[in-house]
């Protein structure tokens, strides 16, 4: 009995030791977890239940010069997957694709593309979701079927009217290169301006995203907000654009397209005293709204492969021969350099020979003996061949440059392209050849090497209108950072040049006669407003080349109309350019509606109704078209 009891006693003692050791090990384990590794687990617990959600800042609203909204924001919904709490991603993708009515493979591709991003970052599956999609997802979320899918309300850019697309530009998700370039603290997923003023003034328009720290439970549902840092809306911008004038430009171009003349071209209207851009258009245009919530592949492809290149801003990136509209630059050079006086007469017999080669005037009958004013009015080519030959290329270059031709205008839009007015120095530098005097002759009528952008033509007319100040065209008028509007001073002129007013007046007289007398621009006449302007019909290809061409390409001439008004105290200057518009007078017809609207608004008259394809009465006659061979691929009858 006693030995037995002792046996039990020792066995119990062993148990006591074992239990004590086990509990000591447990205590040490807890000490390691709770004290030694506490920091690590505390952080994991924080990450477990706290989320920082970005609150997107709306971009600044853009107004016209009178305060009318041009660009604003609307609310849209994006639907995203947050993988952090996803238990079965395939199931979520399958379910979500079904709920959204999307292709499962498509959803999978999107998720795959973002696979390597941190799991707490939402992967956006649908931007700008329809209300049906939003409510379908929300219903499933309430059932805990899709706890890892979030619906976010995001401000999205909206352009209420499709106008001035190239001036406004468009927005899009920041690309990797832009993030890498840094600056402005851009981060992946930000929406930034990719073109137009959206791009140029992106830093002002963008605003600052806010953030919200929330507590979520184990299925990712938000329980409460810990703190909220509201987003700061982007600065509001006021543009120099005049909505009504801009609208008139768009309407006129719409009618031009409807009439079947052309869908391509550009127009810029400036205030010649300040450089305020009152209207700005490039055609064909795109719909900036298509980019606002992420452009779809098909739309993007159609924009980039379109031969008409709608993304191209013809007003600042298109380079074209100015044709007869260049003649004022030649005239001013001759007058200012003292080569001629306004009374200088030349004889036009329909053509003239220079350096052993005949040069034709557009008027085969000839203009007879003609002075400067009438040479401008009649656009006599022989007169300007003669004068250009007398002045020489370098002096033409000097004065054309002073008027802004062949120069950058300095407009506040991205990627402006420089035109070209040739000079002996230019030819030597680029071609390593000397300039032949014979080359100057075609330059005299704006052909040959000369190329200009529409915006530089607007500057050219503004400079002629204000008497020599090459104003810098600009779109930004005032900024409101939330503390009230602060006007933005007009940028300094690019250059100024002294022009003898009497000599300038001779040119202005000629321009006035173009519109108001027997000239080619009388379609642009506005009673009592002394519109002064000049048409130009510039060849896309030489006449001989055009006759020989076997192509479907549009080889019809480009049409120009440049103008300012009124003649003596101009308050506006501008350009209308019709790509393949056949004649300058057709451009003058378009300009008429713009001028009419401008003065109607100025005088407080009711604005003219939008033109129709009939009311513009375009001239489709094309002297060369009849002689042109049928394109190669049309079948013989």
């Amino acid at each position: 009995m006693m030995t037995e009891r002792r046996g039990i006693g020792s066995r119990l003692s062993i148990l006591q030791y074992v239990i004590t050791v086990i509990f000591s090990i447990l205590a040490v384990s807890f000490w390691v977890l709770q004290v030694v590794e506490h920091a690590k687990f505390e952080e994991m617990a924080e990450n477990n239940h706290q989320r920082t959600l970005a609150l997107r800042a709306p971009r600044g609203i853009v107004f016209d010069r009178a305060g009318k909204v041009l660009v604003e924001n609307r609310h849209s919904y994006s639907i995203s997957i947050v993988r952090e709490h996803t238990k079965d991603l395939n199931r979520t993708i399958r379910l979500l694709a079904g709920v959204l009515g999307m292709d499962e493979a498509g959803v999978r591709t999107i998720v795959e593309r973002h696979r390597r991003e941190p799991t707490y970052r939402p992967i956006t599956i649908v931007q700008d979701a329809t209300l049906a999609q939003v409510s379908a997802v929300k219903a499933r979320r309430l059932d805990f079927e899709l706890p890892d899918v979030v619906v976010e309300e995001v401000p999205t850019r909206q352009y209420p009217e499709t106008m001035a697309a190239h001036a406004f530009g468009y927005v899009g998700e920041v690309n990797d290169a832009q993030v890498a370039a840094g600056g402005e603290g851009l981060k992946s997923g930000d929406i930034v301006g990719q073109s137009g003023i959206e791009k140029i003034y992106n830093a002002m328009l963008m605003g600052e995203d806010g953030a919200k720290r929330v507590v979520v439970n184990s299925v990712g549902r938000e329980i409460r907000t810990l703190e909220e840092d509201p987003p700061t809306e982007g600065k509001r911008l006021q543009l120099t654009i005049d909505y009504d004038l801009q609208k008139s430009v768009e309407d006129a171009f719409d009618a031009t397209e409807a009439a079947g003349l052309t869908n391509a071209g550009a127009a810029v209207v400036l205030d010649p005293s300040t450089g305020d851009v009152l209207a700005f258009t490039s055609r064909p245009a795109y719909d900036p709204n298509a980019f606002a919530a992420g452009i779809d592949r098909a739309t993007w492809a159609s924009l980039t492969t379109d031969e008409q290149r709608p993304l191209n801003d013809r007003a600042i990136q298109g380079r074209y021969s100015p044709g007869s509209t260049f003649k004022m630059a030649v005239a001013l050079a001759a007058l200012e350099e003292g080569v001629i006086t306004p009374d200088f007469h030349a004889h036009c017999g329909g053509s003239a020979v220079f350096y052993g080669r005949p040069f034709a005037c557009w008027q085969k009958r000839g203009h007879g003996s003609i002075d400067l004013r009438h040479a401008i009015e009649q656009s006599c080519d022989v007169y300007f061949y003669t004068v250009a030959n007398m002045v020489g290329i370098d002096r033409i270059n000097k004065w054309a440059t002073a008027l802004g031709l062949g120069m950058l205008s300095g407009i506040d839009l991205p990627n402006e392209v420089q035109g070209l007015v040739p000079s002996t120095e230019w030819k030597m530098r680029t071609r390593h050849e000397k300039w032949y005097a014979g080359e100057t002759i075609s330059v005299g009528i704006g052909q040959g090497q000369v190329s200009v952008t529409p915006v530089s033509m607007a500057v050219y007319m503004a400079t002629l209108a204000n008497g020599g100040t090459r104003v810098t065209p600009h779109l930004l008028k005032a900024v409101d950072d939330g503390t009230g509007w602060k006007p933005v001073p007009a940028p300094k002129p690019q250059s100024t040049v002294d022009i003898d007013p009497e000599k300038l007046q001779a040119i202005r007289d000629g321009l006035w006669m173009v519109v108001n007398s027997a000239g080619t621009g009388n379609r642009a006449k506005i009673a009592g407003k002394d519109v002064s302007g000049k048409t130009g019909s510039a060849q896309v290809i030489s006449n001989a080349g055009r006759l020989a061409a076997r192509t479907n390409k549009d080889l019809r001439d480009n049409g120009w109309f440049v103008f300012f008004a009124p003649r003596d105290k101009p308050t506006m200057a501008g350009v209308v350019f019709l790509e393949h518009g056949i004649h300058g007078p057709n451009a003058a017809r378009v300009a008429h509606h713009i001028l009419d609207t401008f003065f109607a608004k100025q005088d407080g008259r009711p604005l003219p109704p939008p033109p129709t394809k009939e009311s513009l009465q375009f001239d489709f006659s094309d002297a060369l078209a009849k002689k042109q061979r049928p394109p190669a691929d049309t079948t013989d009858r």
Partner: protein
Amino acid sequence: MFERRLYYHIDWALVMAVVALCTLGVLMIYSTTFDPTRGTSRMYVTQLYAIVIGMGALVFMLSIDYRTFTDKSHLIYIGVCALLLYVMFFGMVQMGARRWIPLRVFNLQPSEFAKIAVALVLAKFYGENRGTPSWTDLAIGGVLTAVPLLLIAKEPDLGTAVTLMPVFLAVAYLAGMRMRILGLMFLCLLLAAPVAWKFALKDYQKSRVSTFLDPSQDAKGAGYQQIQARITVGSGGLSGKGFRQGTQGQLRFLPVAHNDFIFSVLAEEQGFAGVLVALGLYLFVILRALEAARLAKDRLGSYLVLGVLASFTFQVVYNITMSAGLAPVKGLTLPLMSYGGSSMIATLAGFGLILNVRMRRFTN
């Protein structure tokens, strides 16, 4: 039957420690089941009822001489096995297992009472045999344990079933089973493991084991609870996040926080300090009970105490290890603290027996 002087021999220290652990449990249940959006949950009230009933059971088990219970142990054993059979065919199904007999107030879980029945019957069996148990004795004891064990495992409730094994092992050990045989049994268990893996375990059980070895392989599935348990405990720190301030338990990152993972919640909200207090209380309870086994006036008493204590200790150690994410997740509750009526009543009844043995150490 109940002599007045016995009152003075009640181990009040053990009673106080048990009551302290029950109180801690109620507080933690209150903390984890409190939902501000729905008002206070009634779960802690249910637990209080269970404690009151359990205390009644304790007093009942205390007041009758334990030898009376062991004398009737075969009846108790047969009764419990009958209940287990009943459950098997008519029990209530909940969460994929048929474990409960629905009663008016709460659901009775007979498997909890099987532990006491087995302890009683084994104490009686080995208490009557003198000397080192023979192979036959071991085999009979093994069969007596295996019958309810298999019935419970079939429910299925492998967790509770497994807690019967320590009862047999502890009693046989104390009865003088040779250490060699003990070693042999462990060897058999080790060899049986792959066979069990192949044939006996269900898929969810396999995944629990495999993810225990590498929780990150399935961080959202079976490994999730283990990782979350570790985060819960680790984030508690030295002094804890405060009562009802634990984010892990409150925000449901931890499943069944009021039940299997109640100790994790304690660790999160009361920190290492709270853990030390609870561990200390449990250790005190166990050592104090072992003391009762030592003081028992006969071998029967010692065996009975150890039999009751074995499943209790096994469950406490396993659950706390699991709460820290250091053992595979298994549906094993923490006796005295976890939410659950049957478990509470059975456990307190068991402590009634332990107190009983100690109290009657001088009687004949």
